[in-house]
């Protein structure tokens, strides 16, 4: 594709994904390759079938859970660098989920950074985003429209607790749908931070969250060992409980065990009324693990690249906007889930 010659040895867009010719490796490739550098363990970035993988230390447990324990995996501490071919590669916190990283690649003094997915809001379950100055920055743009502006996390958690309390008062069950890796753990930690550790007694999870929760704990994130709803006796009294579940649970028979449940979802897409209503949720909480419009802008400014590439989401829009602000930018194609994947963000 149309990568300008200046950065050709550093990064290239190929049909298998972003490729570094100097180091002969791919970043989050969507087809099997010899050497893959993985920004984080979400399924649209960490795909099965490559010969070898490189990720951060804290990404290890999640990646093994996702791709199986027999993959060839090498890990690095944040900031630690390694030489691959003639490229120097290091991984830096992206703040998206546990173990997520921005990939820094240096070749002959020129630096490219691939952001992966990222957010700038504080998250007690993962390392905070850090700016990495570079010449070429590849940013995501999942929420790259000016209508996306996140509220303070505390405010959103306050709304969640209020919703839970109201349901509890009405003897109803609260089911909160959120992506199983990252968002759910962030929610559990934030809820317990505000409501107090004893609130864990009324918290349960869907079976799909057990593995990721364990991986978080193995990696050293402080999370209680929450029981899965399916492991409770058939006649368990669910009134007043809060259960976290992946979005796919919404129309599944799993829900039937809770006789009267209020269903909510936590996602950046909940900022849009149409999405909220289409999902037929009782409540939508706007909480995202991606950067909003302003944070995308700030991150680009702080990384301060000479040139910007924009991937999945609103790539063309953000690239045009940044170009008009005086920063040469192009939109590049990727096969990340982008704006179709409502549940995750």
């Amino acid at each position, binding site marked *: 594709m149309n990568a300008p010659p200046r950065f050709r040895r550093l990064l290239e867009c190929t049909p298998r994904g972003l490729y570094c010719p100097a180091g002969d490796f791919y970043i989050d490739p969507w087809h099997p390759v010899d050497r893959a550098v993985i920004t984080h363990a979400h399924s649209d970035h960490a795909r099965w079938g490559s010969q070898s993988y490189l990720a951060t230390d804290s990404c290890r447990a999640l990646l093994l859970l996702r791709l199986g324990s027999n993959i060839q995996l090498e890990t690095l501490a944040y900031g630690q660098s390694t030489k691959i071919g003639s490229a120097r590669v290091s991984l830096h916190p992206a703040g998206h989920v546990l173990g997520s990283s921005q990939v820094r690649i240096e070749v002959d003094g020129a630096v490219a950074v691939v952001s992966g997915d990222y957010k700038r809001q504080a998250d007690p379950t993962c390392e905070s985003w850090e700016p990495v100055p570079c010449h070429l920055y590849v940013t995501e743009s999942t929420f790259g*429209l*000016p*209508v*996306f*502006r996140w509220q303070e996390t505390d405010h959103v958690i306050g709304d969640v607790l209020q919703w839970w309390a109201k349901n509890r008062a009405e003897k109803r069950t609260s089911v909160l749908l959120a992506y199983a890796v990252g968002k759910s753990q962030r929610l559990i930690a934030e809820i317990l931070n505000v409501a107090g550790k004893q609130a864990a007694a009324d918290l349960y999870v869907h079976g799909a969250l057990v593995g990721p929760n364990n991986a978080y704990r193995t990696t050293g994130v402080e999370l209680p060992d929450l029981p899965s709803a399916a492991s409770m006796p058939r006649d368990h009294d669910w009134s007043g409980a809060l259960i976290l579940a992946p979005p796919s649970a919404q129309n599944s028979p799993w829900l039937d065990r809770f006789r009267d449940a209020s269903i909510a979802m936590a996602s950046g897409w909940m*900022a*849009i*009324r*149409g*999405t*909220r*209503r*289409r999902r*037929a*949720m*009782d*409540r*939508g909480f706007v909480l995202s693990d991606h950067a909003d419009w302003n944070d995308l802008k700030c991150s680009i400014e702080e990384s301060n690249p000479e040139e910007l590439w924009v991937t999945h989401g*609103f790539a063309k*829009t953000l690239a*045009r*906007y940044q170009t*008009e602000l005086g920063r040469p930018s192009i939109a590049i194609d990727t096969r990340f889930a982008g704006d*179709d994947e409502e549940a995750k963000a």
Partner: protein
Amino acid sequence: MNDFVELFRGLDETTSTNAKLAALVHYFQQAPHEDIAHAIYFMSGNKLTPTVPTRVLRTAAMKASGIPEWLFEETYEWVGDLAETTAAIVDGKGVPVNSTLSDWIERTLQPIARSSGDQQVDMLIDAWSCLTSVQRFVMNKLITGSFRVGVSQKLLTRGISQWSKIPNETIAHRMMGRWEPSLASMNRLLNADARDSDISRPYPFCLAHPIAGDVMSLGAPSDYLAEWKWDGIRAQLVRRNNTTYLWSRGEESLQGGFPEIETASEVLTDGTVLDGEILAWTKDRPMTFADLQKRIQRKRVGPKLLRDCPVVFIAYDLLESNGEDLRSQPLAERRRLLDSVMQASIGCRDDASAGTLRVSPSVPADSWDELKALRSQARERGSEGLMLKRLDSPYGVGRITGFWWKWKLDPYSIDAVMLYAQRGHGRRATLFTDYTFGVWHEGSLVPFAKAYSGLTEEEIRVVDRWIRENTIDKFGPVHAVRPEMVMEIAFENVQPSTRHKSGIAVRFPRISRIRSDKTADQADTLDVLRNRIAAAPESITNHHTE
């Protein structure tokens, strides 16, 4: 105003009727009556006057956010809702307001609505800066006259009834007609005295359900009154105090638009209310809805139009006679009284060739088969099918299940190819849901209809994805797609049209299913549509009553 915004959120965020009802009652219990009067006003679909032009919203949002026009338009196209886009794109920095709804409308919204030019833009930006995003959204909806919330008039009535402990029917009756957002309206609404002061008011309309399964499942045909189903304006004719009041089903006054009906009804005695249909009629059959529409659009009717498009009122039912409410009487009895009232006042018989006021002729038959045969002649009579009403049915409020049935003719259908797609609005704002279809004519596809509904949410998602992957061109919000997706389009009627490129226009087009088993070249041709014109009356329009 915060409590109203919370009410909006409570209603907007749930699909449960009980939760909506609870939110309404909760609001009524704590809001001042003056606010409730305004809330009812807006929830009944009334608008602030004047409204603020959407252009002003755009300008203000761009000015406040510093966002270039192309980016604003792209964002709006994606979000699909201007009030929401402008609410989300600007920041709230000022001091939060906490005035009552009526104060807020009077001191903030109305002054903005009445101003103009740069001043209006600046006032809008000022007001926005004091609000949260959801408050701005509600405000934008109110000032642009597009405030809609998922509450039917029926649910609103139930909420008021539950809160006020006044029977549902009384509230429904008092809510008919024009609602002024005032304390006086509230006093009338909540009046303990059951005799209502406003004599012009019609009764809430009783509506019918379409027959879902086989007509045989309805029981014996002798339990039913069968009538032709007409496609006109469903209306009530209220004769009280020597005056005739005409009301549409949408509770709009039709006063002045149909002078021949008003004149003809002068012979009715005071305290008479008829339920019926207004139709444009010549000789022995109704004219098209388009003809009737010419009358609807005019408040004052000239002699030429009176001559070209004469109207009649076909009475279905008698709701009040000699001031007595007959709605709880069985239909058979009401029908008997209707005949005798009409006979006594205008000598009208059960005869379709009678004068301006007439009784809807019953369609007698001994068996469902006989009725089926009669129904198949409906199109030739200019009717849409049959109505079946249980002879023992009372005149209920709203869409009552089990008494009244619409038995329409099966729609026409045709296989067509999707040519263009556009994003929807509201709940479907981020999805492609509005499609334009074409049929083959002389080797190319000619667009002939736009259709919105009929697909399941799951199908919409699949089609949405297909559209994204198969867009070949964009014209603003309209995406041209590869002409490969075939769908079956059902419609009620087809007529010649000079306004459409295809030379024909179809009525109520909707998608009945995706024909993934067909390729584009197997879609139908324009000639198939043209051949169906034969059975239909002359002109056409895309509007409809029900």
